[in-house]
């Protein structure tokens, strides 16, 4: 589906367009797993010329006249969701549902009934904002979003406050974990890693991590998870989880994979064919497994992105077991500060997931590596000012 051509180009520098804008000189940015959904054409309304990137941090270069809390020279991490801070939803702290930050709200209303907040570099439906895989970026509502970093923590330790750490944490919070619970996490990519770490922070006694890539399973083990490789021929995930929990099932399940999931069985072929024929838009094999696997009355938390229409989702099982499902884009602004404090206190060093450090010129090639899971890639961080290695 879609087109997958990416290149690094010179474009004009961004300028202040609104009173609450800031221009940030990007010092570090990263490629997110959800950027692959764009790259692979699963999210509609991506167009030629769009600038990607929603995980970034940097130095404030210029601020609009209504921004009083930031000044040039401040070091900030910018949340990927853009929130105005004043609408009904922001006041309820459901920042990702902000009513006033998406200039193309009418597009999302057609697809979803109502529009969520604008996002950086994530399709025209989500606002059409230029992203942060760049040297400079314009940040709207800079009086509300960016988190000032006043300590001398290196960029790499705080960069992931822009998306994946809060996303993993909200996933664990949405999983409604009680002390002593067993939590199953599908996907040991960056969000899965932080969901595992956060599940332990929130009192889980045991976390079972599911993936197929040895390097990611190894990372999960390094932070205390038990792992299941679904590609092992004699392991069905459902059976493995039942065996590990005395047939009770995990108290909570977290789907940190989303719409491009893989599975080892015929489902994968089925979904590949149906998405190719445009008879469904997403490949929900993890969602199906997680609904089946969660215990009766348990909770399913979904940080993995879904975009459209899903086929053969066992909703009867969800109803029959009376499970709770919680999901959605991360309400970033709620989590950034408390999680920064955890990093400052040394409770976690999010940089442990980084496997590649690259320049902006190398990014188009690395999207392919990231998509194909080559070179044992676990997280790619870009220094937009580094010169290309000779």
């Amino acid at each position, binding site marked *: 589906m879609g087109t997958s051509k990416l*290149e690094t*180009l010179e*474009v*004009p*520098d*961004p*300028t202040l*367009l*609104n*009173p*609450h804008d800031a221009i940030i000189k990007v010092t570090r940015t990263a490629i997110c797993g959800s950027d692959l959904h764009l790259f692979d054409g699963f999210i509609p*309304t991506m*167009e*030629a*010329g*769009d*600038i990607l990137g929603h995980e970034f941090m940097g130095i404030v270069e210029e601020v609009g006249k*209504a921004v009083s809390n930031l000044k040039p020279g401040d070091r900030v991490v910018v949340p990927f969701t853009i929130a*105005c*801070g*004043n*609408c*009904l939803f922001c006041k309820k702290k459901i920042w990702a549902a902000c*009513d*006033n*930050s*998406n*200039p*193309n*709200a*009418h*597009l999302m209303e057609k697809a979803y009934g109502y529009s969520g907040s*604008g996002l950086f570099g994530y399709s*025209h439906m989500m*606002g*059409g*904002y*230029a992203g942060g895989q760049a040297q400079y970026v*314009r940040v*709207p*509502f800079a009086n509300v979003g960016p988190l000032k970093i006043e300590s001398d923590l290196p960029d790499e330790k705080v960069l992931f406050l822009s998306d994946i750490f809060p996303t993993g944490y909200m996933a664990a919070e949405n999983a409604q974990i009680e002390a002593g619970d067993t939590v199953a996490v599908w996907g040991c990519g960056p969000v899965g890693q932080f969901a595992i770490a956060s599940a332990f922070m929130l009192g889980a006694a045991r976390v079972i991590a599911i993936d197929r890539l040895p390097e990611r399973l190894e990372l999960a083990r390094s932070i205390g998870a038990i792992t299941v490789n679904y590609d092992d021929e004699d392991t069905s995930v459902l059976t493995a989880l039942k065996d590990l929990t005395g047939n009770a099932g995990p108290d909570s399940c977290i789907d940190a994979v989303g719409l491009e999931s893989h599975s080892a069985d015929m489902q994968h072929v089925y979904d590949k064919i149906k998405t190719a024929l445009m008879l469904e838009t997403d490949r929900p094999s993890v969602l199906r497994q997680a609904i089946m696997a969660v215990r009766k009355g348990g909770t399913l938390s979904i940080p993995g992105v879904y975009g459209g229409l899903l086929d053969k989702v066992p909703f009867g099982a969800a109803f029959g077991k009376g499970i709770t499902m919680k999901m959605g884009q991360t309400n970033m602004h709620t989590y950034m500060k408390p999680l920064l404090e955890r990093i400052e206190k040394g409770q976690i060093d999010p940089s442990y997931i980084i496997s590649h450090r690259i320049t902006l010129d190398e990014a188009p090639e690395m999207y392919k590596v990231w998509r194909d899971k080559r070179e044992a890639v676990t997280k790619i961080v870009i220094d937009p000012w580094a010169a290309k290695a000779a």
Partner: protein
Amino acid sequence: VIFEAAPGGRGTIVTVLQEFRMGKLASAWETLTGRNPKQAVVENLRHFKAFAETGEIPRTQGQPHGPRGVVGSMKASAYGEKIRPRPRPNAKSARPRIKPECLRRNKALHTRNGDEL
């Protein structure tokens, strides 16, 4: 334009009643290009709300981008991204500014919060 208090102290509901007269063909064309009057009223109300709540109207016009090509450019237009939100609502008239050529004969379309009456 009607201003009413929302129940439970949840702000104000603004209703715009506006009549447009235009031919079916023009209406279809305007719809296709994202510029039909009904949508214009909806967008104006949305802009008014954003301005009232935050002091600005969200916008992306003027931000950098790579070459859009012919298709990308047409799509940007269809998404309504080429219609500039007015920087600030005109205090004298809260009515949306509609291009005179939209005000054509025949078919009447009433819009109330975007819904046909």
